[in-house]
């Protein structure tokens, strides 16, 4: 029996084309993590103004960037220039704002503010040090020419990105 079976198997292998595929799977975890630590609140010191200034009853939002590898990422944070939700507005809203480093986990990060690049409402930071960096955003919205904001709830969004270099 063995003498018969073996030639048959050989003949099958010799006559058919065999192909195989195998996968290589790799996962890349981001070495940059963004955490919204403190949500912001607009205060309304004047009828025409919404501001995050603490002296005006507002709360400045704080965003934390955890960078595990230095020199591989840049952080781009944009302070708001529009409401994501608000009552109907029929006049112009003037937006001003700023982003600054409020806390660091390494002393070398204290130069981030002086080295940042600003364009439009964006603030771009080169994350040259591994560790955590806290950014504090301020935002002020003035409505019309000293015009009162319509009553209602106003929401604006701060956009923060961690862009690989």
């Amino acid at each position, binding site marked *: 029996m063995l003498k018969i079976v073996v030639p048959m198997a050989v003949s099958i292998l010799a006559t058919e084309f065999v192909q195989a595929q195998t996968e290589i799977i790799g996962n890349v975890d981001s070495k940059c993590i963004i955490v919204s630590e403190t949500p912001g609140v607009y205060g309304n010191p004047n009828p025409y103004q919404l501001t995050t200034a603490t002296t005006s009853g507002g709360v400045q939002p704080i965003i934390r960037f955890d960078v595990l590898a230095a020199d591989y990422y840049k952080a781009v944070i944009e302070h708001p220039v529009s409401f994501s939700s608000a009552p109907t507005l029929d006049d112009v809203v003037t937006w001003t704002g700023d982003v600054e*480093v*409020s*806390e*660091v*986990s*390494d*002393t*070398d*990060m*204290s*130069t981030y*503010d*002086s080295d940042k690049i600003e364009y439009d409402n964006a603030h771009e930071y080169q994350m040259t040090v591994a560790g*955590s960096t*806290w950014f504090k955003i301020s935002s002020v919205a003035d409505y019309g020419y000293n015009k009162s904001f319509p009553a209602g709830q106003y929401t604006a969004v701060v956009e923060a990105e961690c862009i690989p270099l």
Partner: protein
Amino acid sequence: MKRLGLGLAALCCLPSYSFSEEIYGTTNNAAQTGLAWVMTNILPEYAGLEVNGLVYSYTAVKDPETDMIVWVQNEYADGNGYIFRNSDDWSGLPGNTISKSFAFPNLPATLWGPGSIEVDGEGDVENASVVYSYRYDTCFDPQTDPSCPGYRETVEIPDVGLYDPLQDDLIQEDMERKARIQEEEAEQERQRRREQWALSNALEDLLGDGNNPGLIDPVSEALALALTARVLPTDYLYSLEGREYLETVVLNGGTIQDNSKARRSNLAQQLLHQQMVDSQYESSQQETK
């Protein structure tokens, strides 16, 4: 299944059911009242407490051009170095708020000595916060809680009462008897010494003052004679019969032969002595020349 459930429920409700629990917590801000603190005032007093982390933050206020190094540290409790020390070098950098966290491999609280934040250079530290995280086992000492595993019931020692042998009547009687015997023996010894002393004085008086009739008291003389009669042996006045040992060795032949070996030896020594004297004489003659 129903029986199994009932059994487990009964097991849980048994009085001997025991457990231990690990409690985790964090301290208040150690730097709340100043930049130096004592750990015994910061960590809670639980047996077996271990420190497993530290988070600190502060704001460095300084001129970007100046040099400043901030040390956050804890000494060892025995003062031998630092159990934790970290530096932030702000030299040439603008000040900011810094926050750092550290994890420790459960270091016993007893190792942690005084903590402090020190500044080298120009600048100030504001809004400092130092918070320690810790853990402890509620059953680190099983005897603190009967529910802890390993707890042992305390054994009550029965009140047996102390036995003082000195209070025993029989022993006291025996001790008193021995004390009486010792006292009697001591008294006898004293009496014996007194008699011996009196005897020796009487003998001296008798031998020393016997030629002075004025000093002789008939009574004392009689007493002394009586004592002397008791001490001196009765054969004191008798003479002993002497003896003489006569020479019994006899030399046969009448002459003693010389020992030839001894003679040669004597001659050899004599010759050596003569040579030594001659050499000394010759050397002294040469020196005088």
